Every structure is written in structure tokens, then in C-alpha cells.
């Protein structure tokens, strides 16, 4: 870092599988920063607009607008990219069966896979970078100042490659990633902020695509993680897929219709499955009632009991990691003082019951913590950590997070076995020093294979990197003594240095990550640089402010034609006209803030009118809905990560 950035804000980002959020510390409490649409959640969806008529590169959109494009141009949209981060080609083959998008044809094994999006190809970190850039812009719009530093959260069980890929994405988005924080730990921070508590807490985090369990000890503001475990492929998606597969199966056997041939219908069914899942958290039964393309209706009632039996195998997959985490922390369930629930899937009553049983909560007259919105708590915690790193605030100066590495680090030894050098659940930063020598006279190279995982054979672990120690002075076999230092930094990412001790020469290391981008590749993928320049920043703010002003002005222009307009009083109509005139006046100037303030004022003045419009729209929508219309409605409300997924028949 060439110059120090001591004044800029550090934001906290939850880069989620389904939704992403950005938050910051407002005084003593973390708050989520809404986007231009006023919403806190930015769907983790990226779409490529059509190629402009005049040529050139098509623009990229993110969030709700991108999600709407899913219906018209599914081949130009990507979602749930977090599942592909830091993974190799053969690792994502199975995963891809659930996605409508595909890998570029020229990708070779060992390369970072690129995804074909329309006529362009993107690596997963690039896609994530677009999401991060959107969050960065939302924050800049909110502060009216550039944002260049961030804390980003990752699942605690993410391995080295997945973490590195996330950091790469930050760099591409023009963000200096000051720290990667584990999601459950972040949630604990959000909860621990206003309680000067001591004790042992368990964070059970069941999100859209990943599951994490972390056990932490709190003492004097120090959050010391004792153990962590999880499954990076377990979440609400699995429940949606289950419901969807059953429905598709029944529709095929009872009505002879294979819905998979109708992507729009699959999407409608998926939405119905998600709605049913959500409804079953509060109702005793949910109903499917879907019109099929052949005119039949698929009607099905799912009682909660049946639903709970159906999802039991999915939920039970969280039990093993929880027990292992307890064992690794060396404690019994009774020693857990508090349990924190994180992630949308923890709204399911059966999940809460499972957690209650696991940690003997009711038996001890305890309840899990659910006070903070489970969709937002991770971002809020990231904002707390961002504030700690900025070191600028009284409210967090006593807090410190001591996290652990989730997986053991080892090197491949003779016979393909693993020699473990850093055990899982070691507090990070952690290091280990190993000595290597040569086996052949005059040998100048030693190859080292680093793996991550708990299995005894290297082939069963995750290959992290192959290091080639080169430039060893030629000596008799066994004489050189090469000291290699492995260091896992505070982000959970491995760094390696080596030295030949007899000659005192620093051996050269060539690090070949098994899956990952090189520095040069990341450099070449940095998104357009205009984010950095101050002048361009001001220009962009002005353009954005004008766009927002134009949008509301044209809506107000059309207002008198709406029947709702007549319902307004003369005073209300006059107030709107005055606010409109004011906005039109400042919109001619160059003052972005004045334009935004006037836009906000006009928005306020038209609030009642908007409500009247909304009521009218709803009553129209209720009449005579068709399958196609239902499809189009999906845009706003779908929160599933795989809206277009084809379910697999087993």
C-alpha cells in the first residue's frame, strides 16, 4: 500500500450466495446501507445487457434489475456464483447440473473456470467483483464520498482457495479488503456489541447455500473462537430443491407433463415451493395450486408434519458438524451459555427444534437468540469488524476477534500420506516451520505439495498448492537443510517462505495454487478504473442523482392521468407541483446533493399518491391471473438462489 488511508470509511460486506449487503458503523450501532431502490438486500445476481446497437461492450447490471432479466434472457444472467468461488473444473461439474448457465468451452482442467455469459466469459471472482462494485457504489451514493476499504465475510468453512478468490474479487472491484471475517464470527460480533457478557456461545448459521457452526468464548471484549465446523454445500437451497423435485415428479406421474421443458413453469413452481417453505414456518399447512401448460391443475397440500419428515435428512446433516465442534472445543452442550441463530433457514421451526435438542436449551430454560434479522446480522457484524480495523471509534476499541483456521494444513509425505503441520481450530495467524532436504546427489529442486483437510491420504484432501523450491546449492544428498515457513494469516490464507540454511541462500519458491488466479490475471481483471478518480466520482454522483430525478419527474408528469390523482386533495396536488418545480429548477444545476434532496422532497410529497396507485394495482392484479403473468411477477419477490434451476429426477 503506497499511501495510508486514515480517513476513509471502512464498510462491512456480506457477500452472500443469495443476497449481498453492505453495512457501516453509525455511531455506536451498525446499520445496513440501502441501495438506490431503498432495499437493504442486493440479490447476488449479475446480468449482461444486450450488446449496444452502436457496438462496444455490453453493460453489466446487478441485483433486482439483473434478476428481472432472468426471465427474458436467462443465458445472460448468473446467480449463486459463491458456490463456484475458488473451485476447480471437476469440482463444479455436479454443481452445474443445478444451474442453467454453462462453462465456456475452451476451459481446461487446472484453469479457473470461466462462465459463458452471452458472448462474454467471466471467472467467478469477476462476477463477484460486479456484485461488490454495486455494493461499493451503494455505499458511495449513501456517503457521498468514495469508499475504498472493506471487510468481507466468508463462510467459516471456506478453504484457502475460496478465501483467496473472494479477496481477488474485492481487488477487482477496486476495494482493498482489510480483512476476511468468518460469517458466524461476524454474527457473534453483532450480538456481542451491546452486551458486556462473558461465557461460551454457539453460532448456528444455516444460510441459502452453506452451513457453519462456531463455538466462541467471550471474555472482556475478546471473542475467542474455540472451534468451527460446517458444510459449504448445505442450506435452504437443498430444501427448495427437494420440494421442487417432488412436485416435478408428481406432475410428471399424475399429469404426464414434463415441466422441465418449460423453464418459465419450473421457475413458477420453484417460487411456489419457496413460498410453501416460508409459509410452513408459520402455518400448519401450505398448498400448491399451479396451472399446468396442458390446462390441468396441480393441487397439493403439504401439512407441516409431512414437510418436517421430508426435510429431516437435510437438517440432520448439521448434527455431525455441531457435535464435532463441541468435541473440538472440549465442551459438552450444557457448557454452551448462549446460542445465536443466523441465516434465513433458521426461521424453520424444525431447525429451531433441532438446535434446542442439540444444545439442551429448553431443558435449561434457555432460548436461542433471534433478536437481530438473520438476513442482516452477518453484514452488521462485518461493519463492527470494519470499525475495529478503522480503529477510530470508542465503541469498538475494546473488542478483538481471535478466529481459527477451519481445516488442518498438511504436506504430502512419502506414500501419499499427510503430515499435518497446522491443526484445524488453531488460532490465526498461525505458523509452522518444516525442514526439507534432497534425496539425490546435486539435486537443486524440491517439490512440496500442500493440502488442506482432515483425511489421512493427501489424495482425499483438498490440494492447495504445489511449491517448487528452486536454486538449492548442489550438495550431497540429504545435506541441504531447507527451512520452509508456513504462515496462515488473519484472513485464513496461507503464505510460504523458504531458506536454505547451510548456504544461507533464500531458496526461490514458485507457488502454483491448484486453483486460483495469478497476480497478473487479477490485475488484468480489475473492473474499469473510473471508480478511483475523485473527479469521475463527482461526475458519477451527479449522473446518478439526475437519473433518479428524471425517473420521479416523468412519473409525476404522468400522474394526473391516473384515477388515483383525483382522489388527492387540492392541497396535496399543489404540494406535489411545488416540489416538482423545485426539483426541475435544481436539476439544471451541477449540485448533486441539491438534486438528491429535492428528489427526496418530491418523493415525500407523492407518498400518498403512490400508496393509492399501489392499492389500485393490487386489486387489478388479483383478477384473472395466468401462468404467464405469474411468471412475470416473480421478478421482485423471488429470493431463491436458483430461480431457473432444473431439478434432477432421481
Amino acid at each position, binding site marked *: 500500500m503506497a499511501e495510508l*488511508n486514515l480517513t476513509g470509511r471502512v464498510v462491512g460486506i456480506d457477500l452472500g450466495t443469495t443476497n449481498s449487503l453492505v453495512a457501516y458503523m453509525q455511531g455506536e450501532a451498525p446499520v445496513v446501507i440501502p441501495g438506490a431502490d431503498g432495499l437493504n438486500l442486493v440479490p447476488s445476481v449479475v446480468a449482461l445487457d444486450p450488446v449496444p446497437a452502436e457496438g462496444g461492450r455490453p453493460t453489466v447490471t446487478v441485483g433486482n434489475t439483473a434478476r428481472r432479466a432472468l426471465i427474458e434472457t436467462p443465458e445472460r444472467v448468473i446467480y449463486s456464483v459463491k458456490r463456484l468461488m475458488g473451485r476447480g473444473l471437476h469440482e463444479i461439474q455436479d454443481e452445474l447440473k443445478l444451474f442453467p448457465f454453462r462453462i465456456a468451452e475452451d476451459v481446461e482442467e487446472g484453469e479457473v473456470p470461466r462462465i459463458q455469459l452471452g458472448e462474454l466469459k467471466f471467472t467467478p471472482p469477476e462476477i463477484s467483483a460486479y456484485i461488490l462494485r454495486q455494493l461499493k457504489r451503494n455505499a458511495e451514493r449513501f456517503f457521498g464520498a468514495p469508499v475504498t476499504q472493506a471487510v468481507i465475510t466468508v463462510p467459516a468453512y471456506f478453504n484457502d482457495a475460496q478465501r483467496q478468490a473472494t479477496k481477488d474479487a474485492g481487488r477487482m472491484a477496486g476495494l482493498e479488503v482489510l480483512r476476511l471475517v468468518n460469517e458466524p464470527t461476524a454474527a457473534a460480533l453483532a450480538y456481542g456489541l451491546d452486551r458486556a457478557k462473558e461465557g461460551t456461545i454457539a453460532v448456528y448459521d444455516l444460510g441459502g447455500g452453506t452451513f457453519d457452526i462456531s463455538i466462541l468464548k467471550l471474555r472482556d471484549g475478546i471473542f475467542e473462537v474455540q472451534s468451527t465446523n460446517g458444510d459449504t454445500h448445505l442450506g435452504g437451497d437443498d430444501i427448495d430443491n427437494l420440494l421442487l423435485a417432488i412436485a416435478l415428479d408428481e406432475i410428471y406421474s399424475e399429469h404426464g407433463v414434463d415441466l422441465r421443458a418449460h423453464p418459465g413453469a419450473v421457475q413458477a413452481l420453484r417460487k411456489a415451493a419457496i413460498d410453501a417453505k416460508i409459509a410452513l414456518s408459520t402455518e400448519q399447512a401450505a398448498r400448491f395450486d399451479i396451472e399446468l401448460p396442458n390446462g390441468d391443475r396441480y393441487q397439493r397440500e403439504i401439512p407441516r408434519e409431512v414437510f418436517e419428515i421430508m426435510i429431516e435428512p437435510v437438517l440432520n446433516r448439521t448434527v455431525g458438524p455441531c457435535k464435532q465442534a463441541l468435541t473440538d472445543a472440549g465442551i459438552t452442550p450444557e457448557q454452551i451459555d448462549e446460542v445465536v441463530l443466523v441465516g434465513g433457514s433458521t426461521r424453520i421451526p424444525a431447525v429451531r427444534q433441532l438446535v434446542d435438542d442439540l444444545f439442551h436449551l429448553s431443558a435449561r430454560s434457555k432460548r436461542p437468540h433471534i433478536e437481530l434479522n438473520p438476513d442482516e446480522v452477518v453484514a452488521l457484524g462485518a461493519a463492527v469488524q470494519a470499525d475495529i*480495523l478503522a480503529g477510530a471509534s470508542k465503541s469498538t476499541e475494546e473488542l*478483538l476477534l481471535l478466529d481459527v483456521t477451519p481445516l488442518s494444513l498438511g504436506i504430502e509425505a512419502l506414500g501419499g*500420506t499427510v503430515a499435518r503441520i497446522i491443526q484445524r481450530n488453531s*488460532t490465526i495467524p*498461525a*505458523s*509452522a516451520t518444516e525442514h526439507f532436504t534432497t534425496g539425490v546427489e546435486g539435486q537443486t529442486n524440491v517439490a512440496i505439495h500442500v493440502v488442506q483437510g482432515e483425511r489421512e491420504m493427501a489424495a482425499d484432501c483438498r490440494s492447495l498448492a504445489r511449491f517448487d523450491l528452486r536454486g538449492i546449492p548442489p550438495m550431497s544428498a540429504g545435506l541441504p537443510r531447507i527451512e520452509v515457513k508456513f504462515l496462515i*494469516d*488473519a484472513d485464513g490464507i496461507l503464505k510460504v517462505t523458504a531458506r536454505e540454511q547451510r548456504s544461507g541462500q533464500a531458496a526461490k519458491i514458485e507457488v502454483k495454487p491448484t486453483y486460483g488466479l495469478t497476480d497478473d490475471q487479477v490485475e488484468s481483471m480489475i473492473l474499469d478504473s473510473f471508480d478511483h478518480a475523485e473527479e469521475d466520482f463527482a461526475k458519477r454522483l451527479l449522473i446518478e442523482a439526475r437519473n433518479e430525478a428524471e425517473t420521479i419527474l416523468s412519473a409525476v408528469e404522468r400522474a394526473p392521468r391516473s384515477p388515483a390523482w383525483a382522489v388527492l386533495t387540492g392541497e396535496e396536488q399543489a404540494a406535489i407541483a411545488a416540489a416538482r418545480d423545485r426539483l426541475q429548477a435544481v436539476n439544471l444545476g451541477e449540485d448533486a446533493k441539491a438534486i438528491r434532496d429535492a428528489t427526496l422532497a418530491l418523493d415525500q410529497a407523492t407518498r400518498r399518491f403512490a400508496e393509492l396507485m399501489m392499492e389500485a394495482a393490487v386489486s387489478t392484479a388479483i383478477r384473472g391471473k395466468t401462468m404467464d403473468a405469474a411468471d412475470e411477477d416473480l421478478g421482485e419477490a423471488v429470493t431463491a438462489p436458483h430461480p431457473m434451476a432444473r431439478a434432477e429426477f432421481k
Partner: protein
Amino acid sequence: MLKVIDTAVPIACWSCSVAHNDSTLFCPHCSKIQPAAAGDFFQVFSLDRGFQIDLAALETEFHRMSRKLHPDRFARATEQEREWSLADTALLNDAYRTLKDPLHRTEYLLKLEGAEIGEEHAGKDRKNQQDPSRVPADLLEEVFELNMQLEEMRMARKMGEEDPALQADLEQARKKFEGLLATVDEDLRAQWQVWDAGDTTARQAAQKTMVALLDRRRYLSNLVRDVTETLGA
């Protein structure tokens, strides 16, 4: 309490250039973080070498030093300071992790004192377990019997058969070996006291005993692990 390096050579602070004899992780003059020099884990905590440790005091000191050294405190410092903070904290964490665990602490201190300790290596252990010369003499017969039962159990499991009698035998055996493990731990603790209080001759003898006890312990805990794995499969 932050004293880490044991050296009489004055070192000039990289930041304020003031030389100080009292080598610390923070310059006594300008309070800037300093690179950690090579020292053992006891020195990190300014402790004398010894097998018995006040764990509560160790934790308090670990937290106190973490607050000062952790990379979170240097997120916006110069690259050099961030690097030292990372290295210093890694050393602090490595030291704490090793010293707080009685077994790791014992092995570490024995190695520091020049004792040769058997390698901890999963793959190797599995093979050594089969090697009769590695079996503690007093356990030869029981280990032979246990290995037979384990083999039988694995076969039964493979065939999908239940064998409650065998299961009970194995559980009985596990209890017995766990009891033996507890005895080893007691013996180790006794040797800690001998070493910590003794002179050079007493220490030499205690070290030798502890190395043998650790060998036996490793063997027993592998046996218990095998039984647990077979029963749990």
C-alpha cells in the same frame, strides 16, 4: 512482561532509532511495534521453562498481548508494521496453543531440552501399531487379544452381523485402556513436579521417564482410537 528476546546487544528501533537494551515487541521510547526475534515459546510469555503452568494467568497474558499485537490493530499501519504484527501474533498464537495443552507443552519442552521424541504422524503411526517391537512389553498379550477382536468385529460389520458379546468385550477393553491412559497422565504429572523442582541429574532422569511415558501414551491412545473407530463404524 513483553520481553521476548534474551539478548544484551542493544537494538536500534527502526522508527525512532533510539537503541534499547531491553528488547521488547514495542519500542520503549516511541512505542512502535518491533520485529520478533527468535526465542522459545516460554520466552514469549516471559516464563521460565517448566512443565507446570498457571493456565488462568497464561490466558490473561495471551489476551493482553493479543490486544496489542493483533493484525486488527495494524490494519491501516505501514506495510512493515503489518508484517511484524502478523509475525509477532503468529508466534504468540503458536506459543499459546502449545503451552496451554499439557501434552503439547510436555513434548515441546522435552524437545527444547534435547530429548528425542517419536514422530507424530498419522500414516506412520498406523504402520507402527502393527509392529510387535513397538508394543509395550506388559501389554503384549492384551494387545494381541484386542487386535483379534477388532479384526473379528470388522468382519462382522462387513457381513452386516451384530455381535453383542464381542461389542461388550470391546467396550470393556476400551475402558481398560482408557484407565491405563489416565494412569500414564498421572505419572507424567508426577514427573513434571520432579523436573520443575529438581537439579540437573533429577531432570535428566525425569526427561527419560517422560519420553518413555509419551511413547506409551501415544500407543495407548492409538489403540483407544482404533477401538472407538471400529465400534462407531
